[in-house]
């Protein structure tokens, strides 16, 4: 790989992860670089640990007690340029700060029970922005960034619960984008959506990668090949292969990867 000009934003190093009460680790020594302003796809059969890995990357797992990490997940400090291990973070406010830097979009759209405007403004307010004019500007910018400004500008005060699934998902993306995160993690963001909404979300993801680094779990091989720059194939908690997407889909080096993408299992 000629990746001399690629910059790592995150790097998972030798990560073991065990759920509370589980007899053995779900992630077994994973290594994965996440390159800046690139889209990295995580593929693999159901239950192989894709979501588990993604949820480790902003420590959302830690909302539930009793889990154990071993290894490192480095995140680049924007100011110093140094890599810092996010598994060292302990305090609630450090984790909050981490999650504002590494955002997450879920499988099902999760609008909050409030207005469209408040959904986007909510995270900004949590960050301490109070000025109404400033909030208005940032909300508009985020909704434009998530390509739903046109549909929502006349009903910003309406409840977000009344939007279509596809719109809700773009609203959730807007809500995360508004915080200007360094990395956005997507866990099968289109699996609950129709093809047209899926197309809109894919377009949006390719659009935001110029500002935000993306890691996306997907079940859909076409989606991975269309969208991503890098792809990693996981199986039973192991990372079997990581490479440029083209290489993975045209000429994988592992037999298992080839079997999976050609649909022989999974």
């Amino acid at each position, binding site marked *: 790989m000629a990746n001399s000009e690629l910059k790592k934003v995150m790097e998972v190093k030798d990560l073991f992860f065990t759920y509370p009460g589980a007899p053995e680790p779900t992630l077994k020594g994973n290594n994965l670089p996440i390159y800046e302003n690139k889209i990295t796809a995580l593929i693999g059969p159901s239950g192989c640990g894709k979501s588990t890995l993604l949820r480790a990357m902003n420590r*959302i797992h830690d*909302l539930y*007690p009793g889990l154990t990490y071993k290894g490192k997940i480095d995140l680049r400090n924007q100011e110093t340029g140094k890599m810092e291990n996010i598994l060292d973070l302990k305090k609630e406010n450090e984790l*909050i700060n981490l999650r504002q830097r590494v*955002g997450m979009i879920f*499988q099902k759209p999760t609008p909050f*029970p409030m207005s469209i405007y408040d959904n986007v403004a909510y995270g900004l307010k*949590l960050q301490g922005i109070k000025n109404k004019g400033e909030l208005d500007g940032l909300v508009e910018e985020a909704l434009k960034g998530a390509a739903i400004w046109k549909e929502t500008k006349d009903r910003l005060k309406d409840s977000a619960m009344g939007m279509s699934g596809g719109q809700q998902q773009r609203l959730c993306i807007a809500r995360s984008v508004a915080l200007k995160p360094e990395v956005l993690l997507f866990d099968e963001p289109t699996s609950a959506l129709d093809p047209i909404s899926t197309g809109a979300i894919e377009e949006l993801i390719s659009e935001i990668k110029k500002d935000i680094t993306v890691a996306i779990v997907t079940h859909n091989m076409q989606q991975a090949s269309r969208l991503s720059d890098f792809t990693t194939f996981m199986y039973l908690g192991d990372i079997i292969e990581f490479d440029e997407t083209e290489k993975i889909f045209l000429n994988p080096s592992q037999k298992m990867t080839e079997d999976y993408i050609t649909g022989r299992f999974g």
Partner: protein
Amino acid sequence: MGGKLFRNFSFFSATLSFFLLVGIFAILFTYAQESMHTFGFDFLYTEIWEPGEDDEGGIFGGYIPIMGTLMSTLIAMILATPLAMGIAIFLTEIAPGQIVKPFSIAIELLAAIPSIIYGMWGLFYFAPIVQLLFGGNGVGLLTAGIVLAIMVIPFMAAITRDSMNTTPDVLKESAYAIGATKFEVIKDVIMPYSKGGIIGSIILSLGRALGETMAVAFLIGSVMTVPKVITDPTTSIPVLLANNFAEAQDLEISSMYYLALILFVVSFTVIALAKFYFFGRKKH
């Protein structure tokens, strides 16, 4: 075949309960007629409850029991609501896994204790404490209100907890994922999401407190006087009905039906509101 039978049966039961409701209302209304004609709306603010000589006529007014019912319920709700919310939040979001179960079971058991036991406990154990702390002579509005609160807290907390538990994990996670603290997630996501159920639980508890007889009969003092301070004894609608029904005659009986009708209408309105909120919640 079986499906049709079941449908007919449930249709029958549903209609029956509707007719029961209408029937009860009609009976209360009919028997209350004499008193309604005699006292009209003056009944609502007349403070006297006096049978006439040799059980003929007399003057009956509902002001004291109506106020007693409303005041004791109000005290109960003011005390119970914040505590029940606190318990529900603790059980859904704060308590560590191991203690949620025993705590929940305890709450459900408390909710199932017959009210007469709360009444006896209140009279023998709790009334002296109230007397010590707030003066008065133990029984009275305040004691009744506090014990009513203690009675409805488990019920309110259990329903509120159940409706808070319906908040999907991913919704909470989404809020954490944009940097919310636990407190912010509770306040901005869980509470609004389960608002319908929470309001419903408050209103259902209100309905229970309004109609409670046994516990209040022990604690409110059962005297026909307007309380001057919150620790003074007074009476409430169900207590007055339970105490006087056996000996009452004609106009007094009719006045009691009038009181019952008032309680029925208030409780019915309260429950209807609760249903409306529960129903409203299902929409999204």
